[in-house]
């Protein structure tokens, strides 16, 4: 598993009080882990800080609402981590 996943899983475990062993790359943050929108703000804040990024949650939400993306794309952890890696790469470019 990637270092990004390890960091994100650690954040989710700590902020949402979910055992680390229950969090996998295929976990859906909402459907599988039961993270609600308020807890996700804590996850977003900790993730933004950890990676020095600003996850575009508004844009992602809009894409999902408009049917241009699925929740799986952004809320299954392997997809979320891939998006984080892209944001980190873009920051360094």
């Amino acid at each position, binding site marked *: 598993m990637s270092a990004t996943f390890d960091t994100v899983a650690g954040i989710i475990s700590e902020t949402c009080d979910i055992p680390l062993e229950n969090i996998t790359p295929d976990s859906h943050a909402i459907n599988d882990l039961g993270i609600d929108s*308020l807890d996700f*703000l804590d996850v*977003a804040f900790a993730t933004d800080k950890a990676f020095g990024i600003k996850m575009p949650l*508004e844009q992602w939400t809009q894409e999902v609402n408009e049917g241009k993306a699925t929740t799986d794309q952004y809320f299954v952890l392997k997809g979320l981590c891939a998006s984080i890696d892209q944001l980190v790469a873009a920051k360094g470019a």
Partner: protein
Amino acid sequence: MVDRIVSLDLAAREICADCLVPDASPIFDGHFPGYPILPGVLMIETMAQTGGWLVLATLRFSHMPFLAQVKEAKMRNFVGPGEALRAEAELLHDGSGYAVVKGRIMAQGKRVADAEMVYRVVAFPNEMLRAQMFATARRIGVPENLLHAD
């Protein structure tokens, strides 16, 4: 709760505001009889409003912050009727669709309350609220140049 913006520094991501506790209020009748003190939830509301003005100004009033979470709120001292409070807030993080602010209240140079607050930041739900926020911003002294995008 906020009477006047004393300073609003977007570069430093900080705001400072004066808030005067009224001498008399029905709130003090029950909180508490014979020993009137400002309820802790109103201290939190004071910090939340102060931080909210900071978020609004940071976003040039394009979006509205709604309080979503209060963390580690501490009411450190009693606040009585007629006390002059100084509310301060610092923007810790300007996220996408949310903001995190650290707030505190000072009275007579001493910290009487502090908390970390998370806001959901969304489009104004209607024009009435937007207009009211502009009117209040002007009344309490938010600089005119911060009311609109450059």
